[in-house]
């Protein structure tokens, strides 16, 4: 119950103001199609430089939580999911809004998000210290395999091609080796002065997540958003509260599914929402009503995608292994403030860690309270033309990456990586494993070198890295995740025609 000791820190004037700012800003950003939670958090990092570590993390955590929930606004009122996590919400939420039940759908969505989100953060609160204690037993070989696991799991589970996912991870691991070697001081792959100090993670994250989105907006050309914003009429909130708890089956399925999926590295909110929706539909006696504006669909999808947020941070805070691209961006935010997550985070910086986690708990409730008031405004912001949005994001990306070290080199790297990533994405490569490779590369290499030194002094390298129950378990998980993904890929190809695959990709892009 250590977290209770730091609960008051969330309510200091600055911390609470930042929490409010992150929550309301996140709700509006989340509603904007094309601004994913990962990209929103990446663009916000430069604004945290002047803040204390806990304050910066409060802002980033609040933005993460509320962008996921905010995406429901445009999903319900515009039929455009604000983020992939809200795809399932569109199925019933927009139909409800078309029937004149937009306010009810939004209320159910924010209430379900809050219930799922609070449960997810409670899991984070109670699981993290346990895992952190367990992680104390980890040596260099285990941490090396964990880092590799982080890259391979995301590489194989994220995206539709295992080989291209793993290849993206390799590119990220290679990018992480650019610069001076830590042990020998040797220059590695310095092909341009901009990368002589290595690739700074923050500009790289901004480039990899923001620039492809900007170019995607360019690709649409001179188009206006034709989506009609459906009006939000009054609906008694107490009825919505009663309905959420009356639909306890959908709420429980969504919350549990989201929490479990959040704990698995690489499986994001998009999957959580869709799996919860599907399971809820299968287990409901009213399954025929799904897709026709049934409240259970909204409750299951929204409780799942917010329940996923807390557990997705467990591997990050305990093992330094970000389980998702957004967690990777948060890791960048931690590192820039000199906070190293891992087993000793709660011993060295308990104030930062617990204030951050507690703020996420309070943030879930604030998001629910403010969500309904901000929904109308957020739906209007979601209609900002592509041209304006692309220019704003480009401007923020340029200024944000420059402000990291006041270096033009960082801006060059940001733009080069972002442009390259856009074209790679068009050919089936994915940004998430590349980012994970970039972030986990130094962890993997440092532990590999350290492990090799220990091995040379005690046993052989092979024996050190390939024996012992924990090493073997981690290797087995690496192999199993790749094998499972290959099997799933082959299976889906057998049942999917090429035309279906093309249609699915176009819909997702």
């Amino acid at each position, binding site marked *: 119950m250590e977290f209770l000791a730091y609960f008051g820190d969330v309510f200091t004037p600055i911390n609470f103001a930042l929490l409010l700012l992150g929550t309301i800003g996140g709700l509006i950003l989340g509603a904007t199609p094309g601004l994913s939670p990962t990209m929103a958090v990446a663009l916000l990092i430069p604004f945290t430089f002047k803040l204390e570590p806990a304050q910066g993390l409060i802002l980033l955590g609040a933005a993460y939580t509320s962008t996921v929930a905010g995406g429901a606004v445009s999903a319900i009122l515009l039929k455009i999911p604000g983020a992939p996590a809200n795809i399932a919400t569109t199925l019933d939420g927009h139909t409800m809004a078309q029937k004149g039940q937009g306010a009810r759908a939004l209320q159910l969505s924010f209430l379900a998000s809050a219930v799922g989100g609070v449960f997810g953060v409670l899991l984070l609160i109670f699981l993290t210290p346990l895992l952190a204690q367990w992680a104390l037993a980890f040596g260099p070989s285990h941490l090396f395999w964990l880092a590799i696991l982080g890259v391979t799991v995301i590489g194989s589970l994220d995206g539709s*091609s295992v080989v291209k996912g793993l290849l993206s991870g390799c590119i990220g691991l*290679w990018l992480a080796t650019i610069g001076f070697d830590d042990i020998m001081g*040797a220059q590695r792959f310095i092909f341009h002065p901009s990368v002589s100090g290595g690739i700074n993670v923050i500009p790289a994250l901004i480039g990899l997540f923001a620039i492809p989105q900007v170019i995607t*907006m360019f690709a649409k*050309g*001179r188009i206006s958003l034709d989506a009609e914003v459906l009006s939000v009429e009054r609906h008694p909130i107490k009825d919505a509260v009663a309905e959420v708890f009356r639909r306890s089956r959908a709420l429980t399925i969504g919350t549990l599914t989201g929490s479990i999926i959040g704990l698995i590295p690489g499986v994001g909110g998009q999957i959580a929402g869709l799996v919860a929706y599907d399971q809820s539909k299968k287990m409901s006696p009213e399954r025929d009503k799904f897709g026709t504006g049934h409240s259970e669909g909204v409750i299951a999808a929204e409780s799942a995608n917010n329940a996923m947020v807390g557990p997705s941070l467990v591997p990050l805070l305990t093992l330094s292994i970000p389980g998702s691209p957004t967690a990777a961006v948060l890791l960048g935010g931690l590192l820039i403030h000199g906070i190293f997550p891992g087993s000793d985070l709660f011993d060295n910086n308990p104030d930062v860690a617990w204030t951050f986690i507690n703020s996420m708990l309070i943030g879930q409730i604030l998001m629910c309270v403010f969500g309904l008031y901000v929904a109308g405004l957020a739906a209007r912001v979601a209609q900002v033309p592509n041209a304006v949005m692309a220019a704003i994001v480009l401007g923020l990306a*340029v200024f944000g990456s420059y402000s990291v070290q006041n270096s033009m080199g960082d801006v060059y790297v940001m733009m080069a990586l972002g442009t390259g990533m856009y074209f790679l994405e068009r050919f089936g490569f994915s940004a998430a494993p590349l980012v994970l490779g970039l972030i986990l590369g130094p962890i993997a290499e440092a532990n590999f070198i350290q492990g090799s030194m220990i091995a040379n002094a005690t046993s052989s390298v092979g024996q050190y890295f390939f024996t012992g129950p924990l090493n073997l378990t981690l290797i087995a998980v690496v192999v199993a995740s790749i094998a499972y993904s290959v099997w799933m890929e082959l299976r889906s190809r057998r049942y999917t025609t090429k035309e279906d695959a093309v249609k699915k990709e176009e819909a997702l892009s």
Partner: protein
Amino acid sequence: MTDLPRTQHIIASGLVAAVGVAVAFVSYTQEPAAAFLFPRMISTVFVVLALWTFGKALMGRTKVGNGLDARALLNILPGLLVALVLVYWAAKWLGFYTATTLAFFILLSLYDPAPHGAVKTWIKRALITAGFLAVMYGLFAGLLNVFTPREIFF
């Protein structure tokens, strides 16, 4: 898959494979060897996967990724050119704020669906650009104290 994406897949995976081979070559030939131990490991996997992908592209068996059609490419080109000129030339030599404001206005003019002939459209674009400049200046110069290159202008 049509011929165009197939050719594009061959070019894209060929470029990735070329990078992989170059990384592996440097990793295995540069000294001190100890500094390149980890790059050697990853570059080996990199090359194997990249050549596998290239081989599949050559055989026309790539199943993921739609490539780029001519229309999308034509839409992208002007905006991308403005972004590249902003980042690699204008930001440094004209000054961050001037260059970003110009780029913002040009991008707005290029991609805004509003009719170019109406004066009202141009006034709206100019006002949005001025608002953007004010917010960026307030945030980065005022709030964050970031000193940006100001060169010829500001």
